[in-house]
Structure formats: C-alpha cells, structure tokens
C-alpha cells in the first residue's frame, strides 16, 4: 500500500509499505476513506517529539471501511463504516473502566519508555512516535486498528466523511477543553490558539452558556472564523499587540477570564520577536522541548482560583514555568 512516512526532521514522503495484517484477535483492518493532518503532527514533522523512527507512518485522525476483523471482534462487520479515535483503549483496565481512555494501561507496548519520561505509561496512539506504542498511523491506504471492539465509532447513516471525521480527535479534544472549564453559564473563557482544535473549543464553550469567549491568535482569517462560525465574542490579534495578559484583563474588567484554554501547545509563537527567538534557540538546541509562551500567559491571565485547561500538546520539559503564579493564585489545571 501507499503511506506517508516520516523520514527525519522536516521530511515526510509517500512510500510503498507492506499491507497491515491482523496481529491480535481484537484487531481490525480499515480501508481508509478520509484522513486529516492534525496540528500536533507538525510537532513530529518539526522533530520535537522524542522517539520517532525513520519510516514511521504518520496520522491519527482517520476513518474508513472495515475490510477484516480478528476473531475477538464481534461488534463490527466487514463493510461497516467507522471513525477511529486516536487513543487506542483496551476497555478492560482501571482507566478504561473509568472512561479515561487516553491513559489506558494496556494498549501501549512501549509502556516502559513512556514510564521513564512521564512517570506512568499513557495509551497507545496511532502514528505518534514510539513513546505512544510505535503504531502505524492512518495517513495511508489501510490501517490496523487494535482493540477494534472498543474504540471505533460506527457510522450507520449517510453522513458524509467530512461531517464525522473530526470525531477522531479535534472535536472531542476541543469539547473536552471546554468541559474542563466547568461552564455553567455566564463565564468568561479565553482560548489561546484559533486553529481547528481552538475553533471547536470556542464553539464548545459557547454551547453550555459561556457569556464571553475570547479567541487569541495572530492570523486574521482564523479570528474571523472564530467570530463568524464559532461564536467568539471578542478576539485578540497578538501580532498587533503582544501583551495578551493585559488585553485579557481589559476585556474582563480587570479580573481575568474565569477559565483559559491552551489550544496551542509546545510550538507557541510570542508576539515579541526577541523573546520568541530566545525560546526558539533553546528548543532547537534541545535545552527544552516545549516553547511555553501560550501556557505561561494562560496562567498569568487566568483570574485567581480559575481554571487552566491544557489541550495543546506538550512533549517533555519547559523552561520558566510560572509555578509562583500557579500556586499563589490557587489555580486548577486540567489536561488531556
């Protein structure tokens, strides 16, 4: 089959690779009909996520048609249309029984590697380095889906791929980011990053009744979309004014947002060129893996006793994490 593989930092290419085969009884093989590039794929492309190997097939947002099932898969039939969630979950462990699928205790065959870096292993993920299992991804013609009796979402009606594909990652990720904020109605929510996940986070904050939703980005077309399509009430273009914290205070009567969602992650851009350059050099020299502008500003801007919701991807270690602000303001951090 043809598949897109990672060939080293800043290099991907389409290559011929072997077709996937059933390896475990609870596997299924999916013929992929649609797949997406996630913003977090850029972290792999740019070489900032550890444990990549040349030849790794990328892609963790995909859907398609079941073409083969293992003996242990009874709820799916050949021909079924499915959306495949990006975390691989066994459905049997303590974490899965508590619906904490992204920290499944059994699906990562490189759990020992993850344990060294994170303290505990996390779930296997398609096409996302070897620390998350070394599973081939879905930017290919076919993919093997382990524990196919648990994760895949069966699409029974005639919804087009474009209407359901985002269930594989970015919509539930954005929704979860808003859910972390405990929105009951009337809150002020700031969303750092108005890319696809940020857009879904904005829409998901509007749905339960947030009164003010502030989108933060440096691209005007994204900020326009946040306003016109997703319901943002205010926008901040930090390419025009880099002091995001003060602008958020101005928009919230000096108090700061009740909750802040970081939908940016480890390759954040700072509005001040010199500050950005300094952090960029540290990251390129591997003195840190994560550029933390967005998260630092999120912590500084959030009102005392507010919530910081982190759904942007971070890979390892960050310099100058504002522990003083985090502790003294009594903030709650939720991540995933």
């Amino acid at each position: 089959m043809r598949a897109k593989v990672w060939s080293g930092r800043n290099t991907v290419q389409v290559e011929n690779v072997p077709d996937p085969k059933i390896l475990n009884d609870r596997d299924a093989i999916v013929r992929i009909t649609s797949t997406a590039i996630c913003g977090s794929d850029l972290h792999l492309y740019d070489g900032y996520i550890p444990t990549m190997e040349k030849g790794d097939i990328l892609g963790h947002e995909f859907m398609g048609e079941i073409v083969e099932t293992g003996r242990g898969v009874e709820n799916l039939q050949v021909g079924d249309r499915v959306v495949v969630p990006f975390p691989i979950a066994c459905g049997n462990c303590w974490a899965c029984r508590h619906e904490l699928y992204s920290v499944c205790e059994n699906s990562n065959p490189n759990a020992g590697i993850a344990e060294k870096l994170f303290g505990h292993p996390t779930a296997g993920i398609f096409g996302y380095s070897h620390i998350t299992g070394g599973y081939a991804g879905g930017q290919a013609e076919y993919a093997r889906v382990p524990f196919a009796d648990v994760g895949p979402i069966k699409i029974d009606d005639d919804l087009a791929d474009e209407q359901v594909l985002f269930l594989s990652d970015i919509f539930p990720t954005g929704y979860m980011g808003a859910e972390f904020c405990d929105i009951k109605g009337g809150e002020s929510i700031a969303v750092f990053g108005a890319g696809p996940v940020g857009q879904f986070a904005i829409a998901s904050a509007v749905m339960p009744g947030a009164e003010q939703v502030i989108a933060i980005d440096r691209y005007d077309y994204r900020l326009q979309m946040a306003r016109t399509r997703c319901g943002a009430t205010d926008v901040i273009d930090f390419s025009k004014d880099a002091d995001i914290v003060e602008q958020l205070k101005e928009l919230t009567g000096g108090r700061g947002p009740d909750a802040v969602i970081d939908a940016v992650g480890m390759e954040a851009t700072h509005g001040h060129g010199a500050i950005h350059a300094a952090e960029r050099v540290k990251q390129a020299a591997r003195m840190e893996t994560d550029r933390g502008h967005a998260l630092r500003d999120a912590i500084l801007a959030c009102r005392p006793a507010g919530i910081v919701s982190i759904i942007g991807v971070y890979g390892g270690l960050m310099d100058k994490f504002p522990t003083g602000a985090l502790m003294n303001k009594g903030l709650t951090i939720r991540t995933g």
Partner: protein
Amino acid sequence: MNTRVAITVLRERDEVARLWTNPAYGTAASREVGAAVVFKDALRRFKQRVETGEVPRSDGSPEGERAERKVRQRPAQPLTASELAEVEKAGVS
C-alpha cells in the same frame, strides 16, 4: 539499581494469586530473571493477558513489550511477510 517493581491488576486479590500460578497467565512471568525492567515487562504482559485476553502488539514492538525492543524499535509500519514469520518463529511474548 532498582530491583523492586509493581503493577496493579484489575482483579480480586485471590483471583490474581490463582491466575499467577496458571501457566497460561503467570508461570512465564514468575520464571523471568534479570534486570528489573525485564521483570516489569513480564508483569505487564501478565496484566495484559488477565485484563484483555491478549498481549498488545504494535508495528514498532511486534512481539509485545520487550526490554530489548526499548532500544531497538522497528519503524511503525506493517511488517513484511518474512519479518512477521521471523517474529512468530521467535515467539510472541
């Protein structure tokens, strides 16, 4: 060197003890010798067999979790027929 490892299996204590002595689940693990990392891998496979009925295999670690694979991963792309035959011949987990 740390020689203590632990893992939690989602079963009652009596059942874990019973399964530990069952050759299908525990005997292989209890025979493992060597570094803590090797024994931890064996404990993980025991937990995986008990909880899920199988040892998950990926393209990078097609035998399931193994200490030697931690430093020598194969690419995350499907195995060729000959690679797969070799892995199956060597034994999975």
